[in-house]
């Protein structure tokens, strides 16, 4: 009896019309207030043959006759108000049916399937129960990572991390909507489930050791939570020292490692003309791939003049190029000859399954970020490609999947340069070689459409620019419905996830990160506990 009454409580109304593409319309029962409804909530529809699982995408007010709106009834009288609610005036929901959950044993084994039809007329619509949500999003296990809870529910929404890392993914949202927190969670998820190893280009040094909330509280970074599985590389050891971050490796890049393509990508940030960017290739041919930059930077006036005369380069072009390249001198991590091969070091760590976070310290401008991220990723990409080819030949085991995290992705992946940067290639084709991207950006409309279309799972916090919303939702079914959900997200701790790693689009309240309990849930052990665990492990080993 208690069950029955609780079921009655969650009944919302009946399906009255609609279509698969636009979603079905649900007339709300008189007992249900429209004010209790919210876009993004889940509902279950009991069809005659299937049970449908869908999401509320719109809530509207309807009247049975247009004249009601012209001469409104006297609702100051509670009796009249009670009578006309749900009869003369009523609420209507638009629900997008997304999955069907079959009732028989075979379909339970198959799990929820994408909805290919709509429920019949007057099927009863109820709020989805905790159990429904669990069936759809699964429970946390060795493949699934708990990322948050649906709105107004306590059930866990889990992301299939194994599927997640198979493709490139994107995290989007306006500045201050929680992209960094979400990304930190995703990195923890990948690390915890051992699904992939991460290389993070950490522009603002907030993933490795510790970050800050908007209110100024400090939150632990990955290295603090998982010291044995994370290594911090830095470009700016002084900044790291000031922040009391224990770094594992200081990265130095030799002039000889910089190739003409790298300069080409920096054309905008170094303020180079098209011609001077092209001249770089000419110089590299003339002076040698490994020596050109150092030689050009060390040319005196006379030598310079001789060189441009020989190569037939216009004086203004040379000056423009020289001015641009001089900018590189202020990067102290660039040295004429690097003592150790940074790429090699990164690869060593990655091979051992240790996640690498590269902090930029004070070099948090785009020039340094684009230069370093692109340069390192290109080398790593080459190695992974070789490994994958060797694996095809049966020589070695398949490499551990690598996820490269880049911020401000529109700088790398815009229409103009995405075809030339290594990231454009990774997004397009590197899935085959076990390398994928985790793209973080606040301006998704700036990213090349071709790259966006290749992203497997998109996680997006609030976006309110029309173009950004459009570009994130391109190619998604139920786009216009999701659009209304997306623009109504709260600015904090809420995100819409859709794509490969979840069975259907889902709005979540992001899992807590930053409290002692949350660290514990994520697998962090306090020093004393860690010691105890180590002792026990040793005992087990010798026993």
């Amino acid at each position, binding site marked *: 009896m208690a069950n029955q009454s609780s079921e009655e409580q969650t009944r919302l109304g009946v399906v009255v019309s609609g279509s698969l593409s636009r979603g079905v319309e649900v007339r709300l029962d008189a007992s249900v207030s429209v004010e209790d409804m919210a876009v993004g909530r889940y509902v279950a529809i009991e069809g005659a043959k299937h049970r449908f699982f869908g999401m509320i995408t719109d809530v509207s007010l309807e009247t049975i006759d247009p004249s009601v709106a012209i*001469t409104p009834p006297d609702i100051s009288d509670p009796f*009249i108000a009670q009578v006309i609610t749900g009869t003369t005036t009523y609420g209507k929901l638009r629900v997008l049916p997304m999955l069907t959950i079959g009732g028989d044993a075979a379909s339970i084994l198959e799990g929820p399937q994408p909805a290919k039809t709509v429920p019949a007329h007057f099927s009863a619509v109820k709020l989805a129960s905790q159990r429904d949500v669990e069936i759809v999003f699964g429970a946390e296990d060795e493949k699934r990572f708990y990322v948050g809870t649906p709105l107004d529910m306590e059930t866990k929404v889990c992301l299939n991390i194994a599927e997640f890392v198979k493709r490139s993914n994107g995290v989007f949202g306006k500045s201050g909507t929680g992209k960094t927190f979400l990304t930190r969670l995703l990195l923890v998820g990948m690390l915890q489930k051992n699904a992939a190893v991460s290389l993070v280009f950490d522009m603002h040094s907030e993933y490795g050791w510790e970050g800050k909330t908007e209110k100024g509280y400090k939150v632990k970074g990955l290295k603090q939570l998982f010291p044995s599985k994370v290594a911090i590389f830095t470009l700016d050891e002084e900044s790291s020292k000031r922040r009391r971050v224990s770094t594992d490796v200081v990265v130095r890049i030799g002039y000889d490692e910089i190739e003409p393509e790298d300069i080409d990508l920096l054309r905008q940030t170094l303020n180079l003309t098209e011609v001077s960017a092209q001249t770089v290739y000419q110089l590299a041919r003339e002076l040698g791939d490994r020596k050109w930059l150092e030689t050009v930077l060390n040319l005196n006036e006379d030598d310079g003049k001789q060189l441009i005369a020989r190569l037939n380069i216009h004086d203004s072009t040379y000056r423009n190029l020289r001015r641009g390249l001089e900018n590189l001198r202020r990067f102290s991590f660039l040295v004429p000859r690097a003592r150790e091969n940074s790429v090699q070091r990164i690869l060593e760590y990655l091979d051992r399954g240790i996640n690498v976070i590269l902090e930029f310290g004070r070099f948090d401008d785009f020039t340094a970020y684009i230069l370093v991220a692109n340069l390192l990723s290109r080398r790593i990409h080459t190695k992974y490609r070789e490994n994958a080819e060797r694996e095809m030949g049966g020589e070695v085991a398949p490499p551990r999947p690598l996820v490269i995290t880049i911020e401000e992705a529109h700088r790398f992946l815009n229409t103009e340069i995405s075809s030339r940067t290594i990231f454009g290639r990774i997004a397009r084709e590197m899935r085959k070689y076990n390398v994928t991207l985790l793209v973080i950006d606040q301006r998704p409309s700036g990213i090349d459409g071709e790259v966006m279309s290749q992203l497997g799972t998109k996680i997006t916090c609030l976006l309110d620019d029309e173009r950004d919303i459009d570009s994130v939702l391109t190619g998604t079914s139920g786009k216009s419905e999701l659009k209304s959900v997306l623009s109504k997200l709260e600015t904090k701790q809420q995100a819409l996830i859709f794509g490969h790693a979840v069975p259907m689009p889902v709005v979540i309240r992001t899992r807590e990160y930053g409290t002692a309990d949350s660290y514990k849930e994520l697998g962090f052990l306090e020093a004393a506990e860690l010691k105890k665990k180590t002792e026990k492990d040793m005992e087990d080993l010798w026993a």
Partner: protein
Amino acid sequence: MDKVSKIGEVIEASSAEFTAQCYKLHQAPPLGSLVKTQDKLGDIYGVIYNVETHSLEPGRRVVARGENLEAEEEIFKANPQLSRLLTTDFRVLVAGHVEGKSWHHYLPPKPASIHSFVYTCQLEEVRAFTRSLDFLSLIVNARIPVPVDEVIGACLRYASQVHHDHDAFLVKAGKELAFMLSTDVQRLNSLLKRLK
């Protein structure tokens, strides 16, 4: 009200309504109340929509007689023939019938028989009959010489008295009316005001 009492006799009948003559002058049940008449096929239930007291002979008008009397009752005392010359009739809209043990809120196959007795209904009967409000459509759409909304209002106020939760009954009836009168919001508004 909780006793079945014989109050009159059918003197005119059609499928949708009948007229009954009261045995006693001025003793008709109130407007909107439920009455029944028994028939071989079963009971026919109806709602009183008009009560009329008039002279028995159509050509003979009632004249004023109390000019020199103190109280109105004295008119009848002084003229004992009056109660034989006047009669009270009431008109009833058929609202449903019972066949065997099942209630039907639609018209019976045959009209009420002439001279069949008319009874008031017991509380339990009224409650059972008004449990479903389908009969309202018969009344809402009736074409009768008195304002039909007054009859509906009176009927629902009367029925609400026998239900344990008066307010819930009225809200339920109001909602039923709101569906029926969805295109006539003005009428619905004025009708709802009559339910309290």
